[in-house]
C-alpha cells in the first residue's frame, strides 16, 4: 500500500458516504438527482488499469445500489462509464499529452478541457441509469428531463468540488 492507494481508498469511502447520506436526500424539483459518486471514477489517475477501474466502479455502484434498493442499476451504469473513460481520455488528449502521475482534474488541465471530459461521461451515466430504471423509452420526455436536470445538478456539484480542491491545494 502506497500513499496514493490509501488516498484513493479514503476518497472511495467519502464519495460513497457523501452520496448515500447527503446527496441521496437532496433531490431538486422531484426530478434532479445528484449522483456525485461518478466523480470518483472520473478523477482516478490517467494511467489506472482499465480492469481495476471497472472493478472499482462495480463495487462503488454496488454499494450505492444497496442503499437505493436498486441492486445492479448504479453498478451497471458506472461500469459502463469506467469502460468508456480511458478511450475518451485517449481521444481528447491535449497537445503535448498528459503529465504522468497526474489526475484528470480541473486544476491540471483547465476548465474547458475538464467540462469536455466529464460532461459526456456523466451524460452517458445518467442516460443509462434513468432509462434502465424506467424500463425502456415508454415515458421518454419525462425520463429525458430527469436526465438533463440531473446532469446540470451533478455537473454543478462536481465543478464546485473541483474548485474547492483547487483552492485548497494552492
Amino acid at each position, binding site marked *: 500500500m502506497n500513499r496514493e492507494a490509501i488516498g484513493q481508498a479514503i476518497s472511495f469511502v467519502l464519495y460513497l458516504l457523501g452520496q*448515500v*447520506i447527503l446527496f441521496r436526500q437532496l433531490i431538486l424539483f422531484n426530478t434532479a438527482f445528484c449522483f456525485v459518486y461518478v466523480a470518483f471514477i472520473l478523477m482516478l489517475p490517467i494511467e489506472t488499469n482499465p*480492469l481495476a477501474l471497472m472493478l472499482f466502479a462495480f463495487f462503488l455502484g454496488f454499494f450505492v445500489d444497496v*442503499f437505493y*434498493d436498486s441492486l*445492479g442499476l448504479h453498478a*451497471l451504469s458506472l461500469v459502463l462509464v469506467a*469502460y468508456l473513460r480511458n478511450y475518451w481520455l485517449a481521444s481528447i488528449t491535449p497537445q503535448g499529452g498528459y503529465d504522468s502521475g497526474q489526475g484528470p482534474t480541473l486544476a491540471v488541465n483547465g476548465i474547458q478541457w475538464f467540462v469536455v471530459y466529464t460532461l459526456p461521461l456523466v451524460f452517458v451515466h445518467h442516460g443509462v441509469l434513468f432509462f434502465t430504471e424506467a424500463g425502456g423509452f415508454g*415515458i421518454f420526455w*419525462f425520463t429525458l428531463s430527469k436526465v438533463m436536470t440531473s446532469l446540470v445538478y451533478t455537473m454543478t456539484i462536481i465543478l464546485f468540488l473541483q474548485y474547492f480542491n483547487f483552492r485548497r491545494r494552492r
Partner: protein
Amino acid sequence: MFRLLNFLYYYRAFLTFLSLEFFCAWLWIGNSRYQNTRFFNSANRVVAAILGFSELTREYFGLIEVNRELAEENATLRTLVEQLTLREEGILVATDTLVRFEFVSARVINNTVSQFKNHLTINRGTDMGLAPGMAVVSGAGAVGKVKSVSEHFAVVTSLLNTDEQVSSVLKRTGNFGTAQWDGVDPRTVNLLYIPRHVQPQRGDSVVTSGYNAVFPEGVLVGLVSEVELKEEAQFYVIRVELAQDFRRLAWVQVIRSQLRPELDSLEQTTFGERK
C-alpha cells in the same frame, strides 16, 4: 489453446466489461421481479443504521406535520374504539372476524418518491413476525407491500413503483380496476381497465378490492381527480390522487393477515402454485 488464451488476454478489458455488465443486468432484473429475503438491500443492519441517521435530519424538520397527522389519526381511532365498544355490548361478534388482521406499527427510516421504482425501509422485521408479501398501510391509506425482511428491518415496495399493481375497486360503482403508478407524479396514480360503460366521477373513492392477494378489502387508495375517455378507447384514463402523501410518510402499519396461509393453501390446491 495458446491462441485462445492470447485472444482472451488481448480482449480482457472488453470481456471483463461484458461479464460485469451481464452480472449487473441479472441483478437488476432479479431485483425488480422477486420478493425475497436477500442480504443486499436497505434492510441490512448497517445500511439501515446509516439510512436512519440520514433520515433523522429530514424528519426533524417535518416534526410539526407528522405530529398533526398522528393527532388526527389518534382522533379517528378513538372514535372507532367508541363505536366498537358500543356495538360489542349489543351483538355477538364472530371471533374469526376479530382476529383476522393484526397491525404492527413501524417507523419509516428511509423513503424515496422520485425514482421510478421507489421503496421504503421500516424499522420492524422478522422479530415482529413480518414476512414478504404483507400489506403496509398508513393512517390515510394504502402504502405498499413488504418485499424483503431482515431481523429488525424490512424493505417495502411503495405504491410509487412502476412494477407495483394493486387490484382496486371504484367504491361507488363497484367496478374493478388496477391501480398502477406511471412514474411521473408522486401525488397521483392511474386506475386502469375501467370499461367505458361505467360513469366514474371526480371525487369517487378508490379502495383496494378483496381480490387482492395483499391488501384487505376496502383500504383507501385515493380519490379520482381526473377522468378522461378517449375516442374508441376501451378503457377510461383515470387519475387517482393518493390518499397518503408519500412525500410525508413517517409512520406506517404492517398488516398481518391471520387467515392468509389458509387462503393461500386453499387456492394452491385448487389453482396450483401462485405466480
